[in-house]
């Protein structure tokens, strides 16, 4: 390979319903590395893109929530496998986006891969941990199972472009919910590359939809959308989160309580995020002969 070779640059687009469309608005915005050098033009998603993505996520919900937990676990593990194969690309993008030295970027990518593995193992255990057989005072069998809430709007962290993103998306998938994700606005490239991984990891089309753009612009549309059941306002920042919480009230959405500042994503998570995306369902049946 010649040193003078002109490289083939990638066009970064949205990821909706398993495809990679441009924004219907035709808008793009320039993305730079941490030093201000131009990297690429990202699609600047619009309200219509949000609505298309919600339609795709709703369409995918039945199949994904109805898949066996074992199957979902294998798909999530497959995502980890495919990420591992693209390790160098992720390291380069994270290093450029977040201004990290290569070694640090490597450990971030490793942690992101490992996070998929962690959540992959939860898919067929969380119901055992959170469910129950209820010892009711009467001749009935009563049990409680946690079921996926539905379509989740995720405003991904603005700082941590890959590990933070995986940390907020993987639990949504592990529960059987589907996601409409708004990536970090300034650091969107790892999110699109992750979309390429998802597209080739047996994650069914529409289960994850990734929009690049502004959380402040798209978040309220997601929060007020009648077909979105829950929202993670992490990437909206403290001020934007208030508006999102207000908009969410119109349809009694579940709004994830998140810390004021981005947490240390390298810490091992607990099951709080899984709990938030699950609805306990209690079933009763009489016992008798």
């Amino acid at each position, binding site marked *: 390979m010649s040193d003078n070779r002109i490289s083939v640059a990638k066009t970064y687009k949205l990821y909706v319903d398993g495809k990679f469309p441009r924004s219907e608005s035709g808008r793009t915005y320039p993305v730079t590395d941490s030093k201000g050098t131009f990297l690429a033009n990202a699609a600047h998603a619009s309200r219509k893109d949000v609505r298309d993505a919600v339609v795709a996520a709703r369409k995918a919900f039945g199949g994904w929530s109805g898949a066996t937990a074992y199957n979902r676990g294998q798909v999530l593990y497959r995502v980890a496998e495919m990420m591992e194969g693209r390790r160098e690309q992720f390291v380069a993008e994270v290093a450029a986006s977040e201004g990290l030295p290569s070694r640090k970027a490597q450990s971030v990518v490793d942690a992101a891969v490992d996070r998929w593995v962690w959540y992959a193992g939860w898919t067929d255990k969380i119901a055992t*941990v*959170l469910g*129950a057989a*209820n*010892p*009711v*005072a*009467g001749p*009935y069998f*009563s049990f*409680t199972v946690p079921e996926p*809430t*539905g379509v989740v709007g995720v405003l991904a962290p603005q700082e941590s472009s890959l590990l933070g993103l995986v940390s907020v998306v993987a639990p949504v998938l592990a529960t059987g919910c589907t996601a409409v994700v708004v990536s970090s606005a300034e650091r969107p490239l790892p999110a699109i590359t992750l979309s390429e991984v998802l597209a080739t990891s047996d994650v069914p089309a529409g289960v994850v939809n990734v929009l690049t753009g502004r959380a402040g612009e798209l978040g309220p549309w997601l929060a007020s959308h*009648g077909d979105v*059941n829950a929202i993670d306002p992490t990437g909206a920042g403290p001020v934007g*989160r*208030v508006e999102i*919480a*207000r908009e*969410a*009230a*119109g*349809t*009694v959405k*579940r*709004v994830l*309580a998140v810390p004021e500042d981005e947490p240390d994503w390298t810490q091992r998570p*607990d099951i*709080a995020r899984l*709990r938030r995306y699950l*609805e*306990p*369902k*209690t*079933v*009763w*049946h*009489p016992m008798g002969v």
Partner: protein
Amino acid sequence: MSTWEYAPAPESREIANLKPSYRPFIGGEFVDGSGEPLKSVNPATEEVLAEVGTASASDVDAAVKAARKAYDKTWRRMPGTERAKYLFRIARLIQERSRELAVLETLDNGKPIKESRDADVPTAAAHFFYHAGWADKLEYAGFGPDPQPLGVAGQIIPWNFPLLMLAWKIAPALATGNTVVLKPAETTPLTALVFAEICQQADLPPGVVNIVPGAGDIGAELVNHAGIDKIAFTGSTDVGKLIQRSVAGTPKRLTLELGGKAANVVFDDAPLDQAVEGIVNGIFYNQGHVCCAGSRLLAQESVVDELLEKLRYRVSTLRLGDPLDKNTDIGAINSAEQLTKIRELTESGVAEGAERWTSPCPLPERGFFFAPTVFSNVEQSMRIAREEIFGPVLSVLTFRTPAEAVAKANNTPYGLSAGIWTEKGSRILWMANRLRAGVVWANTFNRFDPTAPFGGYQESGFGREGGRTGLEGYLDV
């Protein structure tokens, strides 16, 4: 053949120990509230039962401060084993005074005495007994080794199950180490204020439980008070949305148990007589003033005629009248306002073309009563199929295939409960899996137990009450 008539069998109202006036309970004392006193009315006779002092904004503030002080100085520091004993005491005191509470509840609410006596009051006691045991076992609840309480909980409850909703709110809050300020419903404050007496008899530390009667404005004061850490609300979806909006952007935690429009699905292989009992229980229990009422009957097309005939006959035998009579099945509608709402929605059903059948039972001359009503030929687009009526009105729709039943059942922004009637076990589990509702009753309906989590999907609210899951709403986890 001679007909055997029922003789009147009224429970004595003397047992209620009705007092001429009741007062707010703040910091362990009954105090004169500075709000405008309200008169609580017996909906079965429209007579005034008692005058009830209400809280003002400053009383709410005093109650929140009393709860904060009790939280900081006493309750959060008390070992769980000791908190547990207070809750066990309360459970026992409710059991001891159960007849008094049942009669008082029936007078104030209008529900049949057999329901307050056999369901409301014993289940309220059971909630305290159940949660008492959790107080010193929270490290086993699955939320980590040392889950912490939230602080002061503001709790707002509806008028349909006054004492039982109080128990659902206060028992888990106290067990997990929180203190509470509870606002009972404007039309049914009496049993909550007798419960305050029970707290005194239990020697519960002052301020751990505060009761502030009042209308919606006092509820809003509570919701917006800066000293509150958590709001728990049971009531309408409209008010729930207002509350969710009010607490948006604050650190207050929120759980909501809101309205419903439950589908009760009857397949052609169901034992129809048994299903009819379940349908009647599902919609006419407590005059249909039940958020999880089975208000939409989905009947498989092949059995709808037979089912409707059996259903109408059974409903015509329901006894409507004096709630204190032990043979009464259907009591009074809780308020004139609610009666107006039921009438308005019922008229919309007729206007939109549904076929109305109403039980020919006689109505008492005084009081707020509404005869059990069944609408057939109901379309999904009609208001009576979409809106919560919260009264003894059933809407009957049909389906052909299980998939259609699921689609119709789930065609609602609500998601509180659902019912399934079929003899086929695999179909029950298939349906239960697909119905988007927090509680699914199969071959039964309206069963409640403190060990079984209760709560809704979607616009029926979030959070659960009861079971291990129910503790989550009162813990910082």
